C-alpha cells in the first residue's frame, strides 16, 4: 500500500463529498447550506490541488485541470457569499444563495470528474 496514494485518494474524495454536502438541499434556502461546510470544501479542494502538482502523466494533467476548475468555482462561490453577507445591503437573499450554491454545483461536477479519474486509474492499474 502506497501512503501517498492513500492521502491523495482521501483528499480527492473528501473534496467531492464536502462539496456534495454543501450543494445538497433547496438551492435558494440559506438555512440548508452551511458556510462551515463551504469553507471546509474550499480548504480540502485547495489541498487536493496542491497534491496533484508535479504529476507529468496525461491523467495527472487532467486531474490537475479538474481540481483547478473546482477551486475556481468554489472560490467564486465564497466571494459571492462574502459579498452577499457583508457588502450587499440586502444580506443573504434567496437569489444570492442560489448563485453560491449553483457555483458550488459546478465545482461538484469537476470533483466528480476527479473521482471518476481516480477510479479509472485504479481499475486500469489492477488490470495491467
Amino acid at each position: 500500500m502506497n501512503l501517498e496514494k492513500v492521502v491523495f485518494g482521501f483528499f480527492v474524495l473528501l473534496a467531492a463529498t464536502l462539496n456534495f454536502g454543501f450543494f445538497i438541499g433547496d438551492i435558494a434556502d440559506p438555512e440548508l447550506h452551511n458556510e462551515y461546510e463551504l469553507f471546509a470544501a474550499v480548504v480540502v479542494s485547495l489541498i487536493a490541488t496542491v497534491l496533484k502538482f508535479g504529476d507529468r502523466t496525461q491523467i495527472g494533467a487532467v486531474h490537475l485541470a479538474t481540481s483547478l476548475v473546482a477551486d475556481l468555482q468554489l472560490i467564486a462561490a465564497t466571494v459571492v457569499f462574502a459579498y452577499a453577507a457583508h457588502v450587499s445591503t440586502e444580506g443573504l437573499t434567496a437569489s444570492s444563495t442560489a448563485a453560491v450554491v449553483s457555483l458550488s454545483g459546478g465545482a461538484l461536477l469537476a470533483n466528480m470528474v476527479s473521482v471518476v479519474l481516480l477510479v479509472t486509474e485504479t481499475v486500469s492499474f489492477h488490470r495491467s
Partner: protein
Amino acid sequence: MARSAGFWDRLTGRSQAPPPRARRHRSVVTGAQASATIFVIMRRMRVPLVTLILIFAVSVLGLTLIPGQDDAGRPWDVGFFDAFYFMSYTATTIGFGELPYPFTAAQRLWVMGSIYLTVIGWAYAISALLSLLQDRAFRSALALQHVTRKVARLREPFLLIAGYGQTGESLGRQFDALGRRFTVVDIADARIDALELNTHHADVPGLAGDARNPHDLEVAGLGHPWCEGVLALTDDDEANLAVTMTAALLRPDLPVVTRTISPVMAHRMAAFGEPTVINPFDRFGDHLRLALRAPASYQLMSWLEAGPGAPLPERAVPPAPGRWVVCGYGRFGRHFTADLRAEGLEVTAIDLHPDDDDPDLLVGDGSDPEVLARADLAGAVGFVAGTDDDTTNLSLVAEARDANPDLFVAARRNQPASAVLFDAMDLDAVLIPTEVVAQEAYARLSTPLLWRFVRELSGCSDAWSAELVDRLTATCGERLEALWKVRLDDDEAPSLGPWLRRGELRLGDLLRDPETREDRLDAVPLVALRGEECTLAPGADFVLHPGDQLLFVGRPSERRALSTSLTDPSAPAYLVTGRREPSGWLWRRLSRRTPAPAG
C-alpha cells in the same frame, strides 16, 4: 519580381520556406524534457503549500468558532470573511490591529498561537521557493529553455559552433562582422557568460552544455532547418569527434568543419561523412612553405582570411635557402620538419626526449647553450621554437638571436596571454594554432568562392599576387573591405539576362558607375567561377556568362552601385554603349518611334 520578394522578406523578417533537405532528420529533444523543471518545482512545493493551507484553515476556522463581542459588549461572532481578512494581514506580518471590534481574551489566546503558526508557514513556503530558485539544476534548466526558445525562433541560416574557446571566439567575431548568425555550445559556463558580454551585432544563443551530448547539440540547433554548418572547435579531440559523428548521423547534409592535431583522430573523423578536418600544425607547415616560396601570395592569403577590417599584414622577407634548426620535436616539430624537408631544405631538430632515432636529431635540452652550439646556429638560416610552452619558446628565440642575429625566427604561441611578449619579440613568423584553425574555417565557410581562391592561390606566381595586393590597396586602402558574392542569374541580376545570353557584357563594363560610366567602381573581382572552371582575378575584358559567380572586394557604396546595375533594366545598355535607354513606359513608347540604331 523575385528580387522584390526577397526585399520584402528581409524587411518584414519573414523568409522563404526553409530548405527542404532538413526535413528528414529525427528530433532528439522532446517538449517534456524542456518543461521538466516546472514539474520538479511543483512537486517540491507540495509540502510547503499544503502546510500553509492547513495552517490558514485551522487559524481561520478557530477564529470563527470562538465567541466574541462587539464594542458594546454584546455577543458577536467573527464570520469567515472577517476571520480570513484578519488572518491574511496578520500572517503576512502587516498587522492592522483587531478589527472590527477589540478581541476578547479567548480570541487573543487563539490569535497568539495562530500568529506563530502562520509566520512559520509563510517563512517555510517562501524559503522553499527561494531555495528552489537558487538551485543550480533549476537555473541551468531555465537557461536551457531560454536557449531552446531563442534557437527555435531563428529564421535565417546560422552556424553551430561547438566549443567557444579562442578559435570559436575569433571565428564568431568574423562571422558576426559578415552579418552571419551562429549559435554556441560550450562546456564552460564562463565562456557562455563571456559570450553574453561580447558586443555582437546579432543575438547569439549560447548554451552551457556538453557538445558530446546529442541532446545539447540539438538544443543549439543541429536539427533546425536553417542550420547550415557545424564547427567542432573544442580543445578536446574526443569531443570534436563526437560532434562530427553526431552531425554526420543526424544531419548528413550539413558541412562539418572540425579540428584536431592528431592524424589518427583525423582518420577517425573522416570515417563519418565528409568532414573538413583542419590540423593547425599541418596547415602552418603549408603556410610557411608558401611564405618561403611566394611571400606575396602568403601575404594576400593571410589578409583575405583575416576578414573584413583587417590591416594589411607585412610581407615577410624569406631567408635564403639553407639549414633550419627546429627546437621541439613533438607533433608540431615533426610535421614542420617533414614540410621543410619536402621543400628540399636541410633541418636539424632538437628535442630532450625524442621518440624515434632520426639521424639529424640532436638529443638534449634546447635551452642548454652547449646543445645550441652543437646545432651550429651561426651556419643556419632559420630557427623555429616549437615547444608547447611559451616561456621556453621565448627564451629559445632570445638565445638563438644571441647566437645569430640574422636568423629568420619563427615561434609557436600557445597561450593568448603571452601575445604581448611575442609581439615585443618582433618575430618573423608566429604560429598560433587557434588562429590558423579560425582563419581556415572562415575561408571555407564565409563563402565557398574565397576558399576556392585560397586553394588556387598556391599555383600562382609571386609577382601576380604582389600585383593583386597592389591593386587591392590602391582601390580599398590598407584595411580589407567586405567580400561579397554575386551570382549572375535571374534572381540576383535580373537586368543583365539578355546581355549575358548574347555574351556582350564584359566585366570591365559591369564595373562602371551606373550614373556616370566614365567612373569605374572601386571593387576588385577576386574570382569568377563558371561551373567548375575558376578564373582568379578576372580582367576587364572577361566576358560574363549566365550563372557565373563572382567574388568582389570593395566598399559597401560600390556594392550598392553594382546592385543598381544588376537590377535596373536600363543600366546594362548604358554601361556597355553609353546610350541611356528609357526605363519608363511613356518614354519607351515615345522613343520607339525613332528608329533604333543597329546593334
